[in-house]
């Protein structure tokens, strides 16, 4: 944010840990969440109790209002589309029509005067299904005699990506050592504390419907629902009020929301649905279910020369909208080489359908899994070369920028080596090794694990277009208006839900316009109020909406300066905007910005047609993308009797470019790491052989509590990004990306005296004990 004439005092709002404007309502119980709304009608869904089969009958009590697929004439299927990777278009009916494809799939909606009544009716509904053999495992889906989940997807492979660099074979053949890891990542659920909810209300005077729902993408929700139901977007308003966490799960279109809008139009009334936790765990979106076999070719100096990967991603029963189910297998393929300098790469990545809940993005999207796999490979390679795990990383991390990856991605300035060194120093590796040895003598097993990674963030439409998505997100728009009172409203297309964007964007705008952030209101999450935008996901909002806000605010500033120059009779270059006034430098001539704002509306004749009326400017931003980076170090203690793992210490050195609000940035990293530790140790959706979920409560599916998360020590480097006009990089997902690898590498380090290796996440006590037992037996 260079540029002359903005900050006379030299102080900037950017870079300061100011308190969040979001907080006062949320800490006093005045937050407004979807489930807080009351309605005339209440909906509960009847869900399939069978994983695969033909729906033969749905019978309910007389007089009950029951909506089934037969009622939804003219309603289209949700059909996201990818024009590459041999993608097989797969439509998802809003309610199961002929066959059911996973346990939890909505087959009917019950409407009643209260939620309890609707629930009572659901209990009386009998759904008859002719069961067929279910398929729940990604690898089993590839077997020759595997059942077909969908007729449209022969062999169950819904998409397939392949890449091989030109000199791969020659380099591979000349390898000194080949190191291999077979990694397995189990299925997980993002588990926002607020489950999904929707409320649709029909306005008889305008014929419009207002859908209030837990979404990260209000505009696209509007587009998608109007496409599926076939009515103009101008007749639907979508509001994302306070949203209780999303982590990607609230990014994809929920078929339940479509029914709500359909019902509001049909009943010409208001209808409400709040998902319960069981529904959320079995039938909202899942993620991370992958098998990766990764091999690395190393030369005699332990330099990685080639990578070969085979990725199987179990995408579940349908393809999520808008990203499609390509999101995991394709991101895994594109970004697997991570922070390492390796130019030869071969990858075969498949998305396979099964009779399980649909997979969708979850914080980190594939990168927690590929980072875990690649970092296991590096640790195994270190052992193969009898090297220190830090040394092998030093030897292989990228240190020249811009760097073009084997997949053609351009990495901007980053600090892979510097953050590694910073973390190594902070944790004091020699001191740790000493205490590790002392502990081992007392049969206590400590371990240290490292994860270095790159985090692609803030990427615009070209990056999404490379995937061949029919719906190609990327850009953002921000409209900044100074109103006649001198206060500012910034309307944004992003849709934050905990990220503090109302605060950070106000900081960015404040520095440009010269007024304090508390005078700037950021408006989001309402398609009637905010410009079309893509929402908040993929660590993009601060970079892209922040960039668009900066562009719009600069235009406003330019106009204010022009007006001030006219009114103060000074050259524009001599005007500074700061502390609420426009000032002629080196003089005491000033004019309040609030007065300029008032004149822009009420005294336009003064400017003789040379300045357009009003003070509203629009910024669009569609950047190429930037890479944040970090090194995570975990210290764990493993109880070899019980398999219990305690994370003792966690150190992070990270670089997310320019930090707009350090307090908020650190909060994002903390939260991501806690999720990553949960992903590494505790969280697993378990299907039985019938395709039923055994982890349908929070007593079975285990997000971490305060007890499982150690104090997290953060260190920062700020390398400004040339690919981001605010110089900021995204950092929302990094915590989740690095932590599983660091924790599981630490477990393996702890278990090294036993010759046991764990290449599976989560590394539960059962898995650790099973590995130890197998070793004991073999001995």
């Amino acid at each position, binding site marked *: 944010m260079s540029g002359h004439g903005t900050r006379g005092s030299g102080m900037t709002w950017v870079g300061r840990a100011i308190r969040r404007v979001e907080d006062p309502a949320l800490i006093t119980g005045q937050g407004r969440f979807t489930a807080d709304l009351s309605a005339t009608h209440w909906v509960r869904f009847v869900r399939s109790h069978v994983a695969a089969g033909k729906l033969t009958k749905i019978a309910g009590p007389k007089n009950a209002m029951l909506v089934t697929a037969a009622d939804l004439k003219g309603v289209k299927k949700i059909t996201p589309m990818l024009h590459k990777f041999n993608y097989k278009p797969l439509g998802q009916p809003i309610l199961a029509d002929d066959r059911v494809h996973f346990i939890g799939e909505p087959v009917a909606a019950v409407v009643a005067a209260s939620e309890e009544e609707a629930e*009572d009716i659901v209990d009386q509904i009998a759904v008859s299904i002719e069961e067929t053999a279910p398929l729940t495992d990604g690898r089993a889906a590839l077997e020759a005699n595997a059942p077909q989940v969908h007729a449209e997807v022969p062999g169950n492979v819904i998409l397939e990506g392949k890449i091989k660099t030109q000199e791969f074979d020659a380099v591979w053949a000349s390898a000194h050592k080949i190191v291999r890891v077979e990694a397995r990542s189990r299925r997980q659920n993002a588990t926002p*504390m*607020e489950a999904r909810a929707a409320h649709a209300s029909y306005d008889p005077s305008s014929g419009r419907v207002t859908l209030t729902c837990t979404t990260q993408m209000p505009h696209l929700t509007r587009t998608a629902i109007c496409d599926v139901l076939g009515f103009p977007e101008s007749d639907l308003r979508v509001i994302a009020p306070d949203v209780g966490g999303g982590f990607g799960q609230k990014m994809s279109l929920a078929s339940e929301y479509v029914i709500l809008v359909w019902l509001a139009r049909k009943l010409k009334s208001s209808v409400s649905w709040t998902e319960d936790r069981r529904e959320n765990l079995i039938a909202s979106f899942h993620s991370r279910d992958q098998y990766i076999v990764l091999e690395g070719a190393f030369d005699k100096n332990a330099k990685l020369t080639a990578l070969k990967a085979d990725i199987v991603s179990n995408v579940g029963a349908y393809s999520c909208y808008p990203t499609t189910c390509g999101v995991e297998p394709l991101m895994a393929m594109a970004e697997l080489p991570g922070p390492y300098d390796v130019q030869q790469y071969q990858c075969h990545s498949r998305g396979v359908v099964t009779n399980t809940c649909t997979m969708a993005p979850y914080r980190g999207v594939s990168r927690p899994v590929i980072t875990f796999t690649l970092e296991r490979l590096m640790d195994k390679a270190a052992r193969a070369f009898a090297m220190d795990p830090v040394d092998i990383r030093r030897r292989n991390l990228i240190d020249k920028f811009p760097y073009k990856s084997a997949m053609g991605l351009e990495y901007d300035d980053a600090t892979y080596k510097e953050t590694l060194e910073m973390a190594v120093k902070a944790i004091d590796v020699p001191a740790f090794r000493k205490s590790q040895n002392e502990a081992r003598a007392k049969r206590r097993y400590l371990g240290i694990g490292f994860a270095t990674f790159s985090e692609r963030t803030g990427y615009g439409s070209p990056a999404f277009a490379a995937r061949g998505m029919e719906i190609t997100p990327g850009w953002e728009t921000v409209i900044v208006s100074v109103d006649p009172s001198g206060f500012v409203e910034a309307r944004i297309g992003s849709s934050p839900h905990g990220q503090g964007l109302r605060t950070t964007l106000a900081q960015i705008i404040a520095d440009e316009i010269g007024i304090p952030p508390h005078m700037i209101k950021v408006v989001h999450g309402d398609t009637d109020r905010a410009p079309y935008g893509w929402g908040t996901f993929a660590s993009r909002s601060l970079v892209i909406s922040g960039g668009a806000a900066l562009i719009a605010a600069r235009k406003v500033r330019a106009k204010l300066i022009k007006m001030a120059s006219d009114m103060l009779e000074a050259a524009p270059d001599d005007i500074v905007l700061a502390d609420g006034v426009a000032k002629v430098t080196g003089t005491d001539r000033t004019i309040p910005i609030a007065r300029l704002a008032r004149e822009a509306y009420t005294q336009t004749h003064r400017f003789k047609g040379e300045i357009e009326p009003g003070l509203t400017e629009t910024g669009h931003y569609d950047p190429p993308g930037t890479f944040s980076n970090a090194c995570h170090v975990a210290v764990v203690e493993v109880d070899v009797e019980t398999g219990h793992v305690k994370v003792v210490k966690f150190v992070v050195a990270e670089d997310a470019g320019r930090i707009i609000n350090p*307090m908020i940035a650190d909060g994002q990293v903390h939260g991501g790491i806690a*999720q990553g530790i949960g992903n590494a140790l505790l969280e697993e959706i378990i299907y039985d052989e019938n395709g039923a979920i055994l982890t349908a409560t929070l007593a079975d599916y285990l997000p971490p509590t*305060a007890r499982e998360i150690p104090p997290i020590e953060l260190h920062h480097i700020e390398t400004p990004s040339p690919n981001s006009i605010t110089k900021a990089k995204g950092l929302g997902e990094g915590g989740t990306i690095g932590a599983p690898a660091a924790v599981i590498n630490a477990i393996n380090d702890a278990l090294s005296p036993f010759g046991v290796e764990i290449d599976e996440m989560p590394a539960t006590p059962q898995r650790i004990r099973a590995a130890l037992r197998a070793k004991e037996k073999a001995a």
Partner: protein
Amino acid sequence: MNSKSNITLTINGRDHSIAVEARRTLVDAIREDCGQTGTHIGCEHGVCGACTVIVDGLPVRSCLMFATQAAGKKIRTVEGLANGDKLHPMQQAFMDHHGLQCGFCTPGFLMLAVGVLEQDPDISDDELLDVLSSNLCRCTGYQNIIKAVKAAAKDMRKG
């Protein structure tokens, strides 16, 4: 199942006369019948603690208590924490230390922490960590919640 009984819930010092079915949970009664939506529902099976309120001085999971069980008892919710415009030290500390992000679990954490510290103002750090492990937060990684509660504990001891 549908017969209702008349009860009075006293929430933040105000009486709410309502008619509820025997199966009505306290949290549903607080939210739906009394219109106090600051208390949230996260799991309805007593694990996440988003619905924590203070009943007769003790933090309880209001999804695990029936409304009729709370009749005649003193119920405190997040809406009653501040004294007019003056925030409770716990609220102030959550704001100062960035102890919340999406804010959904926050009312439950506030009531849990206030309830426990009122009972045991000198609680040890380790015991406090156990107590805070009663509730789930998916955004903050707990770092700043712990920091905020410790800071508020100091303020509350000062009175």
